[in-house]
């Protein structure tokens, strides 16, 4: 299990990218999504974040995503990088 011990970011606010911030949090995962395509893809983005956290075995974290039209695989990459930067052994 990965433990987030510090706030960390990955990605940018450039078009087709997303800025992802992870921060320590107790009792589960909190995900906030702010996207230029919120109406159409908000749920998919949320799910991509959730699945990535699960795959990385992150149980407790606050995750914020500011999306600028990033593809699913880009969002997953940015979440993973932010987690790697914020985890205990980073």
């Amino acid at each position, binding site marked *: 299990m990965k433990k987030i011990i510090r706030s960390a970011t*990955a*990605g940018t606010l*450039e*078009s*087709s*990218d997303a800025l992802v911030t992870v921060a320590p949090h107790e009792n589960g995962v909190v995900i906030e999504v702010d996207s230029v395509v919120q109406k159409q893809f908000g749920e998919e983005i949320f799910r991509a974040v959730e699945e990535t956290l699960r795959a990385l075995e992150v149980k407790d974290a606050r995750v914020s995503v500011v999306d600028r039209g*990033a*593809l*699913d*695989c*880009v969002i*997953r*990459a*940015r979440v*993973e*990088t932010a987690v*790697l*930067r914020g985890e205990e052994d980073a």
Partner: protein
Amino acid sequence: MLRSMLFLPGNTPGIIINGEILGADAVILDLEDAVAPTEKDSARVLSRNAIKYMGFGACQVIVRINGIDTPYWQKDLDAIIPVKPDFIMPPKVSCAQDVEAVDQYITALEEKCGFEKNTIKLIPLIETALGIENAFAIAASSKRIAGIFLGGEDLTADLHCKRTKEGHEIQYARCRMVCAARAAGVEVFDTPFTDVNDDEGIYTDAQYAKSLGFSGKSAISPRHVQAINEVFSPSLKDIDYAYEVMEAIRIGKSQGKGAVALRGKMIDAPIVARAQQTIDMAKALGLGREE
């Protein structure tokens, strides 16, 4: 077939997602010079995901990893090898031992991933004076080597000279690279033309590289891809001539002739070999005709 290879910065999704529609035969996802040291981790995860989930259509995928003198190259390979890119490009390769280090590391990863050995090929980037002098040893150093690639910018810094549009300063390196690659039986790729606004210069530079024997050329701008593809593709005239050569040989053989002439010129083995190369390339490009 790699006529054109387009560099894409490995941490810029807005550029990477368009990789397959820019017309290049291959994209080079760059984890080295195009990525700041603080973003190396981010670039390798993004590039890995791009290869794994997006794909690049008919485009082949090359990943330029960081140099073996950095703390990044093994992590780059750990992330990238499992998603099976077509080629890995190790930069600043100066001797056969540099290739061996990368080769051994990839071999272990291929085994771990259950890939057949030597699935992932190497295109070493040669961009130092020592690398140029060792070009043949590098080109012949591993079964993974698909080709060698000349990096003119770093090379001229190492040579203590200025990189110019004319490229006289890399003339020796170009010729040496072609000779080394052909002697080792691998392909050879030319350095990019770096003035992205010079639409005529790219033609001249690519034509010159082709005339020396290069297999293809890299680009740092999508604007150069079409010119490179045009220059490194056989013309219809070349294709017609190649078929004429093969037909003349066929007729000559059927008549039991030891020597065959076409348009008043003797056709010898090198001409036949070049004709066959032209036909093979034309077919690969869909330019072939019914034989």
